[in-house]
């Protein structure tokens, strides 16, 4: 029975780990931290695998990843710093195209809670209800956080900065 469970989890892991690592990266902006958040989240999912229904496993994993990210910020373990304006150079020297570098830096300037909403809504492409479920809040809260997050994002990512 344990072997069957591991096999099932292995399939789940293989199909999703990279996606959630990328979502975590969108949240924190650091590949090492993203790897850590994703790994810790999958460990937690494995520990409760026997109690998770397969059709809700993704929703549960989204919740765990998001909370793991927010927990690191609450503990003051932030490896990031908010930026008041768009930096002139690329963040971490990544290989994004320049416009993506600017957008990523702008996103990292959005407060963590609002950033989580933006990432789940527009990067992970979830519905308002799914985001509310992942964050454990109401759809109304998701909408208001989305609006505030977009204002903050647009302030740091003006239209003039979007041209390559």
């Amino acid at each position, binding site marked *: 029975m344990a072997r069957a469970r591991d096999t099932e*989890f292995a399939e789940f892991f293989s199909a999703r780990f*990279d996606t959630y690592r990328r979502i975590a990266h969108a949240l924190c902006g650091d590949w090492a931290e993203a790897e850590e958040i994703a*790994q810790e989240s999958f460990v937690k999912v*494995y520990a409760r695998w026997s109690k998770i229904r397969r059709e809700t496993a993704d929703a549960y994993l989204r919740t765990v990843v998001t909370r793991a990210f927010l927990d690191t910020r609450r503990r003051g373990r932030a490896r990031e710093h908010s930026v008041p304006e768009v930096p002139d150079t690329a963040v971490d020297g990544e290989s994004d195209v320049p416009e993506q570098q600017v957008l990523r830096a702008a996103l990292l300037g959005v407060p963590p809670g609002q950033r989580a909403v933006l990432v789940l809504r527009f990067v992970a492409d979830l519905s308002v209800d799914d985001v509310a479920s992942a964050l454990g809040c109401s759809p109304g809260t998701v909408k208001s956080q989305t609006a505030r997050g977009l204002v903050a994002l647009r302030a740091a990512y003006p239209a003039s900065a979007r041209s390559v």
Partner: protein
Amino acid sequence: MSADEQQALRALIEVPAPAPTTTLEVVLRRGRARVRVRQAGSVLAVVVVVGLLGALVAWIQVPAHRLPAATPHLAGEEVGWPRAALPAKTGATPWQRVGPHPATLSVCPSSQVGAVPTGIGDTAEATLQSVRDLLVATVRDARIGYWTDLDPAVHRYSLDITDADGVGSVDLMTSAYSTDPGTAADTLAFTERNCLPPKRAVLTDSSVAQVYPVAPDGDQSIRLTARLFRPDGRMLVVVVRSRAGVPFGSWDRGTLPLSEQQLAQTALRLAAVG
């Protein structure tokens, strides 16, 4: 939000990424360790809860003879009668008297008692006089008062005994029962919040006399009770109190004016005078 903005954000997830360092084996190993820790925590919690419950039950059911806090010698010189052959009660708890005469007793919840007394009787004048004579003769260095019927509805006679410790009292009442002396004595064996059975003597005329352990008498006083079950269906009750017979305005003296031995003698005198 514009479609361009959405597209730009969506593209963030598709950027080139370094190769992941996390493998399935790492996740499985850490996940299994996490499961083991959680299971150990659950087992520990169950053990702790069961242990606490066990300790609570043991504390509630500790036998009276194991309670260490009972103040010794409250009954004075003890009578040598054996205890009635009845099982001791469990569930003893400490009762404490504070103030100038601190004392601790082991008490049990009051037992459910059937309606053994079937009537209220008056105590014969000769009986009252005989008991007083006995007290005058046997209680030294004390002033023995006179019987007063403090509650005419039930004929509760009381006299005060005054000695160096202060004023105490003795009550005497008579009632009736319909069974035999042994059965009635068994039925009324645990009426004084006592965990241990009373000390008992079966007399030659088949009367049964029993003396109970010292018991609380209200919030701050103590009492010592004896019952005499006569074969003719009369039950005489003698209560020695650590305060005067009239409860209002009287101070608890801390000690009983009669010892257990003297109370037992009083019961025997009652049996002798009929």
